[in-house]
């Protein structure tokens, strides 16, 4: 019944959306407010109905309604509650329903309380927005319904794809959809502006919508990148995959739109730019959905090839053709003959930035469709791989960062070159410092040094802007203290300082990108238990392998001790989860992040007995700057979106109500952004780390000294044994492998005792009575003791028993055995040590 009601509700929503579009149009044509109000009611009804349908789907998931195919495909009885909720958008059908709902919701928000500036455009915008809502609802209803029922009820569902169980993947689709849907608003207003010929003020009227859509789109992209880094296990975060590009392309054009909107507000030109950018952004949203859901461009994480392609293609063609025709028909009011400023002015730089965003869009677009086009034309696919994209887009990104750096230095007109000289010093200093610092730190490729110079320039210039503005406020008799000054600056002009913060975030991300793209190290290592292997500055010691069966998967983990420059750093546990139901293996990397670089380990394979394991090791320099920069970027965007009280001039009671509503909405939105950011970076990051205070000594390092009270009453100090070879064995009576190795140790002891080798057995976390029993059972005659208090075990950094350390005559650790040791191994090692 739930599925049937859901389908009916979606069908009803489609009908109402179409009605609303027609009613709004009729209201305009007839200047009849009854029709207009009915249209507005229709918009709210559509939102309510689609919300109900979404709710029905959610209830179906929570109620394990597996007779619904979509629920059976993505959920299971054992799935935790929060994952059942996120399963709603795990597949295409649910995603499209969510999209339709969000589209209707945004339409409702647009028509609910139009501000003074949007009021005249809302009627036509409603028509267009309702048509878009109707399109998505129709696609959901007829082509991709989440309510399709199987003939029977399976006992359990297939469960959620294991790759989607990461917090990044939970928030990534909704964030992206909020961005995509948000872009329909500037689009609708652009068309409305064209139709009503009110082409001058519309970008400012929808500024907040554009900014919010841009912010959510950016959040979605960052979440996707972080997810890829944490879960996919290939050491990277962005592969220029067609699905990734589908989200990036509209982001470029919206960023351009934000900047050109500023231009139009301040200087009045750029009318055609703004209109076209709004149209292109939305078209690229449709294009992105089209490419990801039609299988047109084969993608690493492709959804199943579906039947949606032709419909989306039609929609794209209609939208583009119609919009361009409209722009052309209104060309007389769009032409603006303002004097063009020179390149070296703020206006000129803005224009350059717009050009760069456009070229970036075209570059990535060409790269994405290249395989398909070449296949269609020549029969052979030419793939544009990540290297191609990096090489083509890299210089363009660098140019953008340069523009960020140079822009504050320039005045409004080209004649203000004087300003450049007086303000340019911090930038030059920054460039020099960062380049020198990077070169000293080992980043010596000349291309990257150019990148560092640009980043240093931009960073120092932006920082100087903050400092200058704060100093201006704190100076003088009425000066505030610097922190308060900073706070009030942000409060008074959120747009400007939010923008500065976003630019700061971009600069930091650029730093991370240069480091990770140009200096990443990737290698594959085969490690034997206990044997240290050097990689870059690190030494890795594979300790042991373990397996844990769970509900629907088998988890195999490997633990490694990590040392940097000989000092113990941390312990990492990369995992491999094998999901039987999905026939899928998820390799979860273990990560150690520091300011300088990320050490990233992936378990690739292992031997039957668990003594040997293969790892992929990645060293990603400056990766942390990328994520930190991303956070700064998001915070800056949030600041810029936040409304300030002075912008709205509305009578007091209404203002208070509207302020409350807006504030509540924005606080909630901000909380979501922050929570998503923290959940993703706090939770997902550092997966599989277990840091301890001390680690095992590496071979070649001195064995930690100790003094033991042996069970026979005498005392043994390691320092006294200098000049002799010592075998230290940590064991316990409650450990079966320790029992296995006891005879071997005794045999070895009797063989080498005469040569002056000393064996010491240290019982860990044990009792004397049990130890004595073990000694008499195996006839052990070498020195034995209990590690009272566990201090010696801690000093040696053991992670389990048995572990054996062979110490040479100079007092340094020569060999480490993690796990039981055999007579032959000891024989080989002791022979070679005694020869020295």
């Amino acid at each position, binding site marked *: *019944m739930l599925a*049937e*009601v859901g389908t*009916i*509700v979606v069908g*009803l929503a489609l009908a*109402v959306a179409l*009605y609303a579009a027609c*009613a709004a149009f009729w*209201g*305009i044509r007839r*200047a*009849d*407010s*009854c*029709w*207009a*109000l*009915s249209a507005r*009611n*229709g918009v*709210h*009804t559509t939102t309510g*109905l689609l919300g109900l349908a979404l709710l029905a789907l959610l209830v179906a998931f929570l109620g394990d309604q597996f007779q619904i195919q979509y629920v059976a495909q993505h959920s299971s009885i054992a799935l935790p509650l929060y994952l059942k909720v996120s399963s709603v958008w795990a597949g295409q059908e649910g995603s499209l329903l969510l999209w339709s709902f969000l589209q209707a919701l945004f339409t409702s928000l647009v028509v609910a309380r*139009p501000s*003074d*500036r949007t*009021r*005249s455009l*809302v*009627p036509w915008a409603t028509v267009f927005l309702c048509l878009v809502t109707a399109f998505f609802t129709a696609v959901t209803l007829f082509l991709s319904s989440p309510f399709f029922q199987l003939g029977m009820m399976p006992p359990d569902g297939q469960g959620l794809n294991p790759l989607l169980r990461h917090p990044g993947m939970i928030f990534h689709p909704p964030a992206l959809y909020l961005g995509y849907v948000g872009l329909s608003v500037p689009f609708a207003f652009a068309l409305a502006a064209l139709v*009503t*010929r*009110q082409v*001058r*003020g*519309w970008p*400012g009227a929808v500024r907040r919508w554009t900014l919010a859509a841009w912010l959510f789109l950016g959040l979605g992209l960052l979440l996707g990148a972080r997810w890829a880094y944490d879960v996919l296990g290939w050491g990277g975060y962005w592969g220029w995959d067609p699905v990734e590009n589908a989200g990036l392309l509209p982001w470029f054009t919206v960023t351009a739109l934000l900047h050109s909107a500023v231009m139009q*507000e301040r200087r009045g030109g750029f009318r055609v730019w703004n209109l076209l950018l709004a149209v292109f952004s939305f078209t690229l949203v449709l294009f992105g959905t089209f490419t990801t859901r039609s299988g047109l461009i084969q993608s690493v994480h492709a959804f199943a090839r579906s039947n949606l392609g032709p419909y989306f293609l039609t929609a794209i063609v209609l939208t583009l053709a119609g919009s361009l025709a409209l722009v052309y028909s209104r060309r007389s009011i769009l032409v603006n003959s303002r004097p063009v400023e020179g390149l070296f002015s703020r206006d000129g730089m803005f224009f350059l930035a717009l050009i760069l965003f456009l070229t970036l869009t075209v570059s990535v677009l060409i790269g994405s469709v290249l395989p398909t086009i070449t296949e269609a034309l020549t029969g052979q696919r030419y793939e544009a791989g990540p290297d191609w994209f990096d090489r083509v887009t890299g210089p363009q990104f660098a140019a953008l960062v340069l523009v960020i750096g140079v822009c504050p230095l320039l005045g409004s007109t080209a004649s203000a070159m004087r300003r450049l000289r007086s303000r340019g010093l911090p930038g030059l200093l920054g460039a020099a410092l960062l380049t020198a610092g990077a070169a000293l730190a080992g980043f010596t490729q000349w291309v990257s040094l150019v990148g560092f110079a640009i980043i240093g320039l931009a960073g120092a210039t932006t920082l100087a802007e903050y400092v200058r503005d704060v100093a201006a406020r704190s100076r003088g008799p009425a000066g505030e203290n610097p922190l308060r000054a900073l706070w009030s600056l942000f409060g008074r002009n959120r747009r400007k300082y939010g923008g500065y913060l976003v630019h700061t975030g971009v600069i930091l991300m650029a730093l991370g990108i240069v480091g990770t793209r140009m200096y990443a190290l990737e290698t594959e290592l085969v490690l034997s238990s206990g044997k240290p292997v050097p990689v870059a500055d690190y030494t890795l010691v594979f300790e042991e392998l373990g397996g844990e069966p769970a509900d629907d998967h088998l988890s195999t983990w490997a633990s490694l001790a990590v040392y940097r420059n000989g000092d113990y750093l941390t312990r990492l546990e990369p995992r491999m989860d094998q999901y039987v139901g999905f026939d899928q293996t998820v390799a979860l990397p273990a990560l150690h992040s520091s300011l300088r670089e990320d050490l990233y380990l992936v378990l690739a394979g292992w031997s039957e007995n668990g003594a040997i394991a293969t790892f992929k090791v990645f060293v990603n320099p400056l990766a942390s700057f990328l994520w930190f920069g991303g956070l700064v970027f998001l915070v800056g965007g949030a600041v810029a979106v936040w409304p300030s009280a002075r912008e709205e*001039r509305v009578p007091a009671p209404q203002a208070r109500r509207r302020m409350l509503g807006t504030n509540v909405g924005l606080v909630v939105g901000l909380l979501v952004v922050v929570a998503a950011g923290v959940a993703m970076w706090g939770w997902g990051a550092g997966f599989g780390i277990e840091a301890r205070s001390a680690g095992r000594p590496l071979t070649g390092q001195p064995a930690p000294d100790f003094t033991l009270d042996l069970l026979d009453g005498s005392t043994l100090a390691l320092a006294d044994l200098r000049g002799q070879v010592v075998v230290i064995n940590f064991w316990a009576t409650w450990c079966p492998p320790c029992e296995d190795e006891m005879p071997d140790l005794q045999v070895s002891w009797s063989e080498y005792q005469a040569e002056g080798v000393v064996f010491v057995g240290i019982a860990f976390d044990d009792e004397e009575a049990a130890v004595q029993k073990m000694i008499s059972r195996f006839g052990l005659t070498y020195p034995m003791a209990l590690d009272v208090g566990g201090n010696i075990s801690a000093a040696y950094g053991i992670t389990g028993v048995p572990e054996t350390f062979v110490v040479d005559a100079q007092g340094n650790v020569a060999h480490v055995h993690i796990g039981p040791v055999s007579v032959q191994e000891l024989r080989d090692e002791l022979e070679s040590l005694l020869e020295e």
Partner: protein
Amino acid sequence: MGVGSVLVGIAMALIAGAYLARPFRVVRGGTDWDQAIETWVAQAHAEGAAPTVVEEDTEPVSFCPQCGRRVGPDDRFCAGCGTPLRGGAA
């Protein structure tokens, strides 16, 4: 398609229909009507003529409390009837 679902569907359609038809039964002269007129009729004049609704950022506009004439933000007396504007009832 079960009977229950159909009934639910019909019920929802009726409710929606009533909500959509509501504006057509609004008493003329009520507040909804005035607001709607202001919003939508202006739209009809948008083609060709300059709209009465502001399309760009302008300064806030005030009206004389006495005679209703439009006055500028810095005016101290109304140009139509002479009523003081600052510090008075305005």
